[in-house]
């Protein structure tokens, strides 16, 4: 099972986990990214490259399936305006044993951060707006998987 979605709509991690749990494996891992309301943030706007996003996410998924024996994989990334506390991204993996599920979910979110064409703009209570700069650690987090391919 490979389920990749780029959507404005909200999603329900519990429903996504249930789908992955039903695949007969012994382990399901997940990561959910949430908008933090730090510094007076009132809105996070997610822009993306519509033609490229689904394809870039599919490549990341294929790479994970090549590296680990997965029974299922779910990637959901929202775009559009998001309020603090809202879910941005969901990564879920199912495998026979826990190791592949856990490693693949960490890999998938690290790669989504650096290889999927999304950009975040923050809007603050004082009216200030700013495009989010990549965190220095993100490239390093993705690169650590290069040694293990």
């Amino acid at each position, binding site marked *: 099972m490979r389920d990749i979605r780029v959507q404005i709509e909200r999603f329900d991690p519990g429903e996504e986990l249930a789908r992955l749990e039903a695949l007969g494996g012994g382990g399901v891992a997940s990561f959910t990214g949430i908008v933090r309301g730090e510094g007076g943030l009132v809105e996070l706007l997610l822009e993306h490259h519509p033609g490229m996003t689904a394809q870039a996410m599919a490549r990341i998924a294929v790479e994970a399936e090549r590296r680990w024996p997965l029974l299922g994989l779910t990637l959901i990334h929202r775009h559009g305006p998001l309020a603090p506390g809202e879910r941005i991204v969901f990564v879920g993996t199912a495998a026979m044993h826990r190791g592949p599920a856990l490693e693949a979910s960490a890999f998938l979110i690290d790669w989504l951060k650096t290889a999927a*064409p*999304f*950009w975040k*703009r923050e809007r603050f209570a004082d009216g200030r707006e700013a495009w989010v700069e*990549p965190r220095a650690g993100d490239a390093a987090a993705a690169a650590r998987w290069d040694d293990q391919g």
Partner: protein
Amino acid sequence: MAAIEMLYFAWVREAVGTGAETVTPPEGVATLGDLVGWLSGRSPGHATAFAEPHRLRAAIDQDFVDFAAPIAGAREIALFPPVTGG
């Protein structure tokens, strides 16, 4: 050279002033680096957007590429800041 559909995202889009435009670069504009240099002359907004090429990333026909990439045959080229999704 054939027309290329340019796409701009995030602050690159804001600086250029549009998210998409069609351009036809002259002969001699061979690489993505050449193209960015040539685009900088189109308007003050373009010049601002492309003033610091190390802050830019690019995709040709929806594949990430670096600025040495040849643009021959490209139909769509996207220029944008480093991605910050996830």
